[in-house]
């Protein structure tokens, strides 16, 4: 059973009109940081260092099917046609369905809205909780809505990673990769490097590379 909490007053959320954002660049203050000559996209490139296992491929395919069954083959466009309340309902349902697919029993999902924080999402293994900032979801910008879906896939992958290593037996969990994969996750968590201390090393460490790459594969071509 997935427990989805909406951590702000529901009435307030529904009252939030969908923001009109001129540009992705302006939204995240990117112009003032990186100047004018920057891409208006958030799509990263796949890393050559990451190799998908057969279980990963199955995981990606099952996830894509789940998203398509929930939101159609153009999930971002589908969300963009919805009002704020419908978006929250759709996302809540999608997270519940994906968590069920990944057998993440008891996971708690908290949604919040904060324009001032740059925390888009996180997974806390101590409380088995996913926290998602819906600010990107509440926009009219396709790249931001897409990035929100990416954050869902990314944080759920961290929950799956944690479940992979706390399982006593590999056979107990359908999405568990081989022992070497489990070792890489456990070692990576022990030596975790946060974004705020070294952004490049954060992105390159195994637990993050795995979450970024898997999320990107899941959403590839789903506009």
């Amino acid at each position, binding site marked *: 059973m997935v427990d989805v909490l909406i951590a702000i007053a529901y009435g307030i959320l529904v009252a939030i009109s969908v923001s009109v954002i001129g540009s992705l660049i302006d939204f995240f203050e990117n112009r003032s940081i990186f100047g004018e000559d920057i891409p208006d996209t958030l799509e*990263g490139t796949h890393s050559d260092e990451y190799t998908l296992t057969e279980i990963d491929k199955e995981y990606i395919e099952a996830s894509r099917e789940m998203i398509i069954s929930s939101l159609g083959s153009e999930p971002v466009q589908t969300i963009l046609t919805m009002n704020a309340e419908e978006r929250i309902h759709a996302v809540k349902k999608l997270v519940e369905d994906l968590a069920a697919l990944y057998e993440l029993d008891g996971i708690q999902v908290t949604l919040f809205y904060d324009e001032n924080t740059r925390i888009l999402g996180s997974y806390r293994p101590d409380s088995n909780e996913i926290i998602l900032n819906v600010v990107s979801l509440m926009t009219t910008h396709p790249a931001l809505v897409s990035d929100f879906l990416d954050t869902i896939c990314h944080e759920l992958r961290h929950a799956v990673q944690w479940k992979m290593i706390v399982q006593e037996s590999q056979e107990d969990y359908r999405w568990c990769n081989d022992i070497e994969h489990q070792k890489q996750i456990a070692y990576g968590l022990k030596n975790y490097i946060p974004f705020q201390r070294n952004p490049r090393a954060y992105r390159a460490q195994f637990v993050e590379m795995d979450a970024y790459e898997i999320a990107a594969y899941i959403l590839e071509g789903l506009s």
Partner: protein
Amino acid sequence: MKDLIRLTLNYFRLKKYLMEDLDYTEHQAIRTISDIRKMDPSIRRAFILWFTKGEEPKDKLCGVNFQNLMNYRNLNPVAAFLAIDWYREDPMQAFSVLGTGTKDSGMELVQGMEKELDQILQRLDVKKEPETEDTRDIT
């Protein structure tokens, strides 16, 4: 003339700063200094100037506004220099992460989970890899 002056930074001084002032773990400090060594020379020079003389990059560094990067991404100065070097070398990949916000502050395990994680490492028979440490001055 200024560019001709050779700047050096003592490894242990920087490691101490990272661990004591910025609360990095030893692993994070060693990895970060290793990444600083690999920086583009112009960025590394700006980093050493900042660290030794407190001179922050004026205007932009490799096209990136150092101060705004710290302010809007909540990065400490060391992380900001590393981010600029990453953006210079791989703008698409770096922008996909630096262009938005953070996903995963919670994956930094809370202290109470250390014991549980150690038990998992033991069960999975994960050997602690020896940390290779290059203690030469940074130039």
